[in-house]
């Protein structure tokens, strides 16, 4: 039944786009978090000196 293909296509599209977005978001957050940690370390070193 080709209608099933359409149903599949629609739900796959939803899943793929949502997944890609969440993945990109988590990667973005991870990068920024790492940057924050590095900056905090730098600040601590500055304050110590």
């Amino acid at each position, binding site marked *: 039944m080709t209608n099933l293909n359409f149903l599949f296509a*629609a*739900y796959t599209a939803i899943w793929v*786009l*949502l997944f890609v977005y969440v993945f990109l*978001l988590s990667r*973005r957050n991870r990068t920024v978090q790492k940057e924050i940690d590095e900056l905090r370390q730098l600040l601590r070193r500055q304050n110590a000196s």
Partner: protein
Amino acid sequence: MLRKLADTVLPFLTFVAMTAAIFMVFVQVPTDKVQGIVQRIFYFHVPLAMMTFAAFGLVAIASGFFLWRGSRFWDRLAPSSAEVGMLFCTLVLITGPIWARPIWGTWWTWDARLTTTLILWLIYAAYLMLRTMSGTGDQGARYAAVLGIVGAIDIPIINRSVYWWRTIHPAVLITREGGSGLNDPSMRLTFEICMLAFLLLFGWLLWVCNESGRLRDAAEDLRQQVIEHEPQR
């Protein structure tokens, strides 16, 4: 703190609701007699559409508050809402035609709702581009806020004009599909569960995206502090 709560409870609720939604859509709800199984796309398509319009409304409200109050909170909320809204809008524009093809025989019709959604997508895109392409700091935020407000005011006008555009000429009249002709109570329940699931999904994604913005701002603050603390060489 509220943050901890949102970080854990929100995704959990979203997961539960979405799982329930998937179950309802694929197992529980009866097949529509007229449209066949393709009709099931509807249960995700419509909540997606409602959320994208809600998202844009939120963009407008946040933009307004930002121009009025100037706090970073609103300027983080607005683009986050725009980002998630854009994602949902894209999904609406993909699932809509996939549904339309077997039902109406054509991928695209220029009917009022579909066309307005397309234009909404274009305005979202312009908003996000404007936000990233403006020069220094606050400027981009303010410009985007202006667009957010003007766009939101314009959408109803656009909708009405496209609707008139389509329905004045009876020869090309394409009646909008019922869609909301949900007779079976089980269908209505399915729809409501899906609506809830997407409301939660939107909330969760909005939260994560907003957090991203907050982290970026925190990083920027730290960077400023580091620069200030730099000893004079």
